[in-house]
């Protein structure tokens, strides 16, 4: 007989299962009962086939259900908001208005990061060596070439992509769709257009992340723009600047500029 504690533990385990696992288990049990019953007793081929159908779907649901993270979306949102608010407070308190430049991992010692220059420079000086992994960093020879090196949503998201996309619009589009649609589930589709003057236009269809017009987002861009800029910086291996970001009729358009040409 099971003890109360054991029963309690089982209850907790069952509550933690996601809807895919639940649906998979229900279909597995129903399919296992229906198919032999229909085949041996009722002698109905179509009902047996329907039972097999349920079993196939149950295997698929169980396979997909095991890939869902154990943390609830509410907890993830809580963690994201806390991190973003802390970053927003730092940027607002320092009174920074300059636009961030997204640097590839080759310029940052392993991870793509965002550099916010403390002084507004018309052009970023060429970065020839990897920047030190510090919060406040010097990126040029001029005394004013000091900036904040931040880890953004894009830093973590770009790390999910393996292998790194190549510097062409086709590979970038495929990588972004794979990341935003397949892995993160935050949009339906992505299209990439590369213009001659080193400008890249990325359209994200039906995004499910809001972009608010805050001081922080004016500097670093919204979460989607941050992800797109980080992945593009990785693909091109060059610093990327977000020049424009707008949301219109279920389409989020982001314009990027490849700097350091």
């Amino acid at each position, binding site marked *: 007989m099971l003890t109360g504690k054991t029963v309690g533990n089982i209850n907790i385990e069952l509550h933690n299962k996601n809807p895919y696992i639940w649906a998979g288990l229900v279909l597995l049990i129903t399919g296992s009962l229906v198919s032999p019953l229909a085949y041996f007793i009722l002698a109905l081929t179509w009902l047996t086939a329907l039972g097999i159908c349920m079993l196939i779907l149950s295997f*698929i649901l169980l396979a997909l259900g095991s890939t869902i993270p154990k943390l609830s979306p509410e907890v993830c949102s809580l963690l994201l908001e806390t991190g973003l608010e802390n970053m927003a407070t730092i940027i607002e308190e320092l009174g920074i208005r300059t636009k961030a430049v997204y640097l590839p991992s080759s310029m940052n010692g392993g991870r793509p990061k965002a550099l916010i220059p403390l002084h507004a420079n018309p052009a970023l000086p060429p970065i020839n060596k990897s920047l030190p992994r510090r919060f406040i960093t010097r990126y040029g020879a001029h005394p004013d070439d000091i900036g904040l090196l931040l880890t953004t949503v894009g830093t973590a998201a770009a790390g999910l992509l393996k292998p790194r996309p190549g510097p062409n619009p086709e590979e970038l589009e495929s990588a972004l769709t794979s990341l935003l649609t397949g892995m993160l589930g935050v949009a339906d589709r992505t299209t990439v257009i590369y213009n001659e003057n080193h400008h890249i236009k990325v359209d994200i269809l039906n995004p499910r992340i809001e972009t608010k017009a805050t001081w922080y987002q004016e500097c670093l861009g919204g979460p989607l723009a941050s992800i797109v800029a980080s992945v593009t910086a990785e693909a091109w291996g060059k610093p990327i600047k977000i020049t424009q970001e707008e949301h219109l009729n279920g389409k989020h358009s982001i314009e990027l500029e490849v700097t350091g040409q």
Partner: protein
Amino acid sequence: MKIYNSYIIITALLLLLTTIILMVTGQTSLDVYYLAYIIEALIVTELYVYFNTKARRGLHIVSVALLGGFLFIVSLEVIKMLA
């Protein structure tokens, strides 16, 4: 996970539609039903190229298991023909 939902709904609808079509056409061989299901499931899985690595790995195991069933049926048919 919108992509998971669309994949499951499309697969379920396709399998259900196949069952109805085969039932209406008077198909009585269970092998035909099973082969049609496996082929459809494998094609739909291949079409969803944007799944994450974990999901792809999980579905790969399911595909291998289904393919094993497919080969089992084929070998049974071959044995029946030879006998």
